[in-house]
């Protein structure tokens, strides 16, 4: 991967991002079901899965390189789509269970098939995706349409042969992990041992074996004996990428807990607690709400954790519990809008965050279809926009700026003009290359590094 020289004025990116493709209907045609709720690359970046509010999963596959068609390189084409979850009603608890896909996680590929886990609020499902490109022909007893032959016409025996056919992608549900959660599942994470995975809801975390659906081990339970004493909930969790015994979970109070499954069967007691002390004189009604961690991601190296709360992204060193090693402001100008953001519920929006392949750049979404990238080495940050108007195919994305009063440049957007209904909650970064997938409501944008795309 080529490395561009860092340089230029702040607010510019070392990488030139350009729109590679845009999927989804135009904005005025949005139906609630089309809203994308999760985006995830697989471990090689060859496949990209999206889940939506309607419970459907769409998988894109990257076109392999070919010298014949240089412009089709790296394009993500629809590979398969299926209905993962359907709406349910729990009559006993009078609870409506949404079919919205909260998270998708790919399993590392172990044979020709691909597998992924998808989850809604209550049920996790393991899906197997296989390709079929051959079919047997020349049966003795059945004809081409599968009807039984008239045996009197059969005069000789033949051996059926496999003939090539148009590629068919088949998706089958292999396991359904149901009834494991009383509360709403917010995360799933596959263990590096490739045999187990965990699912976390607001109060509990369960450990499952991928092959066993009727049993699950509870490894974290923070439900208080008296619900009146409830002060915090689990907001996200993830297994360490290399150490199969370690996992982290974040809370609505802004803390992270690293747990070691070797220490005890029930990991209610953390091994490490990562919490930044708060200045009590700064405390306000909003403090706790905006400190709630909406996403936590280990770095690829396993040395750091990235968290997102309402206004910042923070990098934590596993070896330092007292405070994050880096803090980046995503949209601090919203601090003076907290009252209206509370009234319209935007203050509860759950933004995700992502590392690039080398852990040198972090990315997160914001409002007005803006997303932000922070380069940890150069300390430069950039704001880009995912919208039809500002993204012409192959044209380089222009950095955007939000002005907060004071000098206003042309093309700046004022805080009051930001569209809070256009939120980029879900983003994903290719595991090794500078390719990013951005979900803007019902549209999926794929941006690539211009240099990257020209090299192919």
């Amino acid at each position, binding site marked *: 991967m080529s490395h561009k020289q860092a340089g230029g004025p702040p607010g510019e990116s070392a990488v030139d991002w350009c729109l590679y493709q845009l999927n989804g209907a135009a904005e005025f045609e949005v139906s609630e079901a089309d809203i994308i709720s999760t985006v995830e690359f697989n471990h090689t970046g060859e496949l990209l899965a999206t889940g939506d509010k309607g419970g459907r999963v*769409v998988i894109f596959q990257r076109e392999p390189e070919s010298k014949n068609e240089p412009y089709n390189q790296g394009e993500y084409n629809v590979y398969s*789509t299926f209905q993962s979850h359907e709406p349910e009603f729990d009559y006993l608890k*009078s609870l409506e269970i949404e079919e919205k896909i909260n998270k998708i996680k790919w399993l590392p590929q172990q044979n020709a098939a691909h597998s992924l886990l998808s989850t809604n609020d209550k049920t996790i499902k393991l899906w197997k995706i296989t390709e079929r490109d051959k079919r047997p022909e020349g049966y003795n007893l059945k004809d081409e349409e599968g009807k039984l032959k008239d045996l009197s016409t059969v005069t000789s025996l033949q051996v059926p042969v496999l003939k090539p056919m148009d590629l068919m992608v088949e998706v089958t549900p292999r396991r359904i992990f149901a009834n494991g959660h009383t509360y709403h599942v917010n995360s799933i994470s596959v263990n590096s041992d490739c045999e187990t995975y965990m699912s976390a809801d607001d109060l509990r975390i369960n450990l499952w074996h991928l092959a066993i659906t009727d049993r699950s081990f509870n490894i974290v339970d923070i439900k208080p004996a008296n619900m009146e004493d409830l002060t915090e909930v689990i907001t996200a969790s993830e297994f360490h990428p290399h150490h199969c015994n370690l996992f982290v979970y974040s809370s609505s109070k802004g803390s992270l807990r690293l747990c070691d499954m070797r220490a005890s069967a029930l990991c209610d007691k953390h091994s490490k607690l990562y919490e930044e002390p708060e200045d009590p004189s700064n405390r*306000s*009604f909003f*403090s706790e709400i905006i400190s709630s961690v909406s996403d936590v991601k280990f770095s690829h190296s396993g040395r750091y954790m990235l968290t997102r709360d309402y206004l910042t992204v923070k990098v934590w060193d596993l070896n330092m519990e007292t405070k994050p090693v880096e803090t980046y402001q995503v949209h601090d100008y919203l*601090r003076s809008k907290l009252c209206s953001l509370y009234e319209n519920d935007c203050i509860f929006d759950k933004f995700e965050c992502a590392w690039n392949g080398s852990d040198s750049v972090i990315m997160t979404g914001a409002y007005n279809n803006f997303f932000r990238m922070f380069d940890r080495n150069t300390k430069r940050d950039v704001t880009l926009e995912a919208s039809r108007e500002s993204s012409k195919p192959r044209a380089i994305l222009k950095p955007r700026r939000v002005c907060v009063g004071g000098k206003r440049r042309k093309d700046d957007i004022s805080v009051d003009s930001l569209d809070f209904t256009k939120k980029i909650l879900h983003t994903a970064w290719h595991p090794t290359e500078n390719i990013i997938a951005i979900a803007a409501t019902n549209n999926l944008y794929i941006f690539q590094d211009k240099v990257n795309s020209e090299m192919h």
Partner: protein
Amino acid sequence: MSAESPEPASAEEQKEMEDKVISPEKVEEAKLKARYPHLGQKPGGSDFLRKRLQKGQKYFDSGDYNMAKAKMKNKQLPTAAPDKTEVTGDHIPTPQDLPQRKPSLVASKLAG
């Protein structure tokens, strides 16, 4: 008469000004409290969290509904006030309030 020069702000006034400048959050908090004076004292605490845990709960009791209908024959049933405190039992859902079951098996537009 000599021109009066403005008095320097007292230390207290200065601190107050600083507070306002340093903490836009506190300004926002004051705004919110002005609009919703009954807002709970423990905002991040159990009320707010319990509401979050109850997401998806839809109560419909046909007995309650019919009793309410009988009581207020010609009046419209009260609809839930969009307030920020916990709603417990006052509001009787009507069939219109409950969301319709969504149609399934329609292909995603992302798939083209």
